[in-house]
């Protein structure tokens, strides 16, 4: 397969790579530039764990042709912190125990960031809608929903511990 040059911005930094013509963005991120937060889950666009932001929009990197990202700005979880200080969403996921096996977590964070970047005060329904393309096998979703609402400053706990 012939190689083609591509330039894009990755978490605010300029990148230039030679990639396979048919490479997916996921394979370029994981295999070429050492970004491993997007996971290779279903690799057919149904599980959401490969989610990244492309020019601020939530996208599935496993079904995005890397060449289409020329000149684009790509965000992943690796770029969420500020000088080592966790993003409020990351902190809320920690505080709410919103991860178990962790395989969905980075995709969930991206979906949540895409929402909050545009809508800093979402309703519960808007949060549910925002993560509905991301599958989680462990948490039952409730801790994730609550973490995202917590990160906005709200709180909507619907379960309790005796």
């Amino acid at each position, binding site marked *: 397969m012939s190689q083609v040059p591509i330039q894009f911005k990755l978490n605010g930094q300029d990148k230039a790579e030679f990639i396979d013509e048919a490479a997916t963005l996921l394979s370029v991120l994981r295999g070429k530039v050492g970004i491993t937060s997007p996971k290779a889950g279903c690799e057919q666009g149904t599980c959401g764990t490969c989610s990244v932001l492309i020019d601020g929009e939530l996208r599935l990197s496993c079904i995005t042709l890397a060449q289409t990202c020329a000149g684009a700005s790509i965000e992943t979880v690796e770029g969420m912190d500020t000088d080592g200080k966790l993003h409020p969403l990351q902190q809320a996921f920690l505080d709410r*125990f919103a991860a178990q096996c962790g395989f969905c977590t980075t995709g969930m964070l991206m979906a949540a960031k895409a929402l909050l970047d545009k809508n800093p005060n979402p309703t519960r329904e808007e949060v549910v809608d925002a993560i509905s393309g991301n599958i989680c096998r462990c948490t*039952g979703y409730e801790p994730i929903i609550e973490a995202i609402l917590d990160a906005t400053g709200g709180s909507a706990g619907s379960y309790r511990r005796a």
Partner: protein
Amino acid sequence: MTIKRGRGIASVNYPIGMNLGGDPSQALVHATPSGKFMVTLSSIDLGQGMKSVTRQVAAETLGVPIEDVYVDTADSDTGPHCMGSFASRGTHRVGNAVINAAEEARAVLLDAAAEKLEVNASDLETDGKGNIQVKGAPSRSISVMDASGAAQFEQGKTVSGRGIFFVPRNYPDPETGAMQPVTCYAHACTVVEVEVDDETGVVTMVSMKSAFEIGRAINPAMVEQQLVGGGWMGMSHALYETTEPYYPNRDHAPVDFSSYLMPGPGDICPIDLVVLERPAPDGPYGGKGPGEMCATPPIPAIANAIYDAVGVRVDELPITPEKVLRGIKGMSQTH
């Protein structure tokens, strides 16, 4: 079309571990050159908290700060034997093995400290902050690091311990059939409310309320995490998941996540839970296993709630809208 509401209840006694070959797990504990402790296991943490719980148990038994304990696990090439992470056995079986190993390592540590302090080891205690001191005379003390250093560099001892836990295999009495397959059970009771659309057969979860008796909650936040996630899994087993929707006919078998259905974040209901702690006599610090038990009672509770709502008794999982609707139509034909 009517939306009908129903309530169902179910209880479970769930065995911890299994009655096969003794169901053993092993642990090794040793002090590193810097006086920290390494717990070596093969038990796998899939996100349930195996590493956190065994770290807590090891720190508690050794009498050292939890920050000074590392857990190295999930490699059967290098670790000691473990049957695996299943049967809700991890906390109970592996926790007990870690206690055994940590007790042996602690005894060597206290012997080394006793030699340095010129006292009897039985007169020593740990302060949980990294020091070993004479009971009643805390000014006579030595740090864990110095004691393990003395063992390694002056006394020629390894500060280490070996642990194994297993429950001897039990066979049924040939006369009565009575047996004791496991030594400890977790318990739960779940009450669910559902709404059933009698035109489409769609079941909507309204609420799930559960009480769990899981021994001591060694890590309460992770217990809650398991129980909330398990509630969702029970819901998923009851209403959504199958690889064989028309078994033995393989038609319509799902091939990906767009056809293998699970409840999404918009399909869940409020999960209300209460944890009751009744420490198990043979559990590590009383712990049992909350893992699988929490996913089981929602299933019969949901089936019962559907029966309560529309009078349809479905005994094959998952309880799909099609099965509910066929049940409703079957009733109207017979009446």
